């Protein structure tokens, strides 16, 4: 009986102290995603495509103290991505079928954008699990309404948060990294000569 209680206590201690994958979000602050001062949006209607399968992908990356964090990169960043495209172009739509070029042309969409999101995290904290550093890499493949490659935009965002900052928002480093990546995306889009042709 005593041995059994000891095993249970040890197992619970492990659950509490080690190996947890804590849920966080990367939801960006939309107010931080704006077109740079003086830059003009590109006068085009664009579509973007994120497969439903990617929206439901949950990834796990390192946190602090041997723990990990888990989140949904595509699902979380999509509203910010939509806002970024809304800032860079005059109109944006979600596209369900990127191969249906006839529907794209009928809908007035002149560019189709497919994002790829890669993330990572780390922490210098030994006793706290939220990440103190977070990175978001966005690669946007852009084709015209006929499927012909037009441009590939690559940006990286970094976010950091100290204990005093993240104690009231465990996702803070991730939010800041999303904000940084999306702000850089807007800038890269409006500054691309290929997209204005």
């Amino acid at each position: 009986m005593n041995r059994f209680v000891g095993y249970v206590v040890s197992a619970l201690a492990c659950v509490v102290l080690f190996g947890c994958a804590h849920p966080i979000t990367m939801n960006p602050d939309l107010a931080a995603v704006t077109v740079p001062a003086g830059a003009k949006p590109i006068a085009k209607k664009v579509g973007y495509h994120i497969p439903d399968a990617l929206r439901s992908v949950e990834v796990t990356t390192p946190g602090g103290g041997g723990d990990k964090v888990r989140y949904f990169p595509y699902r979380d960043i999509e509203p910010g991505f939509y806002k970024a495209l809304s800032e860079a172009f005059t109109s944006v739509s979600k596209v369900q079928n990127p191969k249906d070029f006839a529907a794209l042309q009928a809908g007035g969409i002149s560019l189709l954008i497919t994002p790829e999101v890669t993330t990572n995290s780390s922490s210098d904290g030994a006793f706290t699990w939220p990440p103190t550093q977070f990175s978001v890499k966005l690669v946007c493949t852009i084709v015209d309404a006929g499927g012909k490659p037009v441009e590939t935009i690559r940006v990286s965002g970094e976010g950091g948060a100290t204990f005093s900052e993240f104690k009231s928002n465990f996702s803070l480093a991730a939010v800041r990294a999303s904000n940084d990546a999306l702000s850089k995306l807007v800038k890269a889009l409006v500054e691309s000569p290929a997209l204005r042709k």
Partner: protein
Amino acid sequence: MLQQFRRLALFTGIAVSAFLVGCAGPAPNYAPSIDNVETLKKIEGAPAVKTGTIAVTAGMPGAAALTLRANTMTSPVGKNYGDYIAAALRQELELAKLYNPQSGVEISGTLLKNNIDAGGISTNAGQIEARFVVKANGQVRFDKVKRIERKWESSFAGAVAIPLAANNYAPMVQSLIASLVTDPDFVKAIRN
């Protein structure tokens, strides 16, 4: 006997800590639903509208803070969750380019229920109920109560269950707004 009692007390203490552990703070930023935004954009002939106040029912539990086990989660915007829902609705209208603070058409309402049950060890759930009113130049065009419930898989460990509950609040609000913007009477009310 005393040793056994001590071990039991230790076991109970660790179990309670595992169940309750986590920290309190504001709810995560609202993430607008792109499906809601696209639905709003497809309302033909809709003028830009503005959002008014989403009031909270006096004395309602969960108006200013939601209890997640031993922790509390407050609204990151305004004074209460009525302000959170109003801001969420405004964000979706802004993304759909249908927001104009000078518009004569206003969407307002009252939060009637705001709850998250985070105590379950395998599943948890949350419910929101709100009355939405659309007025055009002071005249009521739409007045309905919308209610949603969301369930999710959870965990015994508070360090997992509490952030999970917190992260499910924004999707709950997305569902509430979806129930509004897909209502044909709402569409008709803002179109007129």
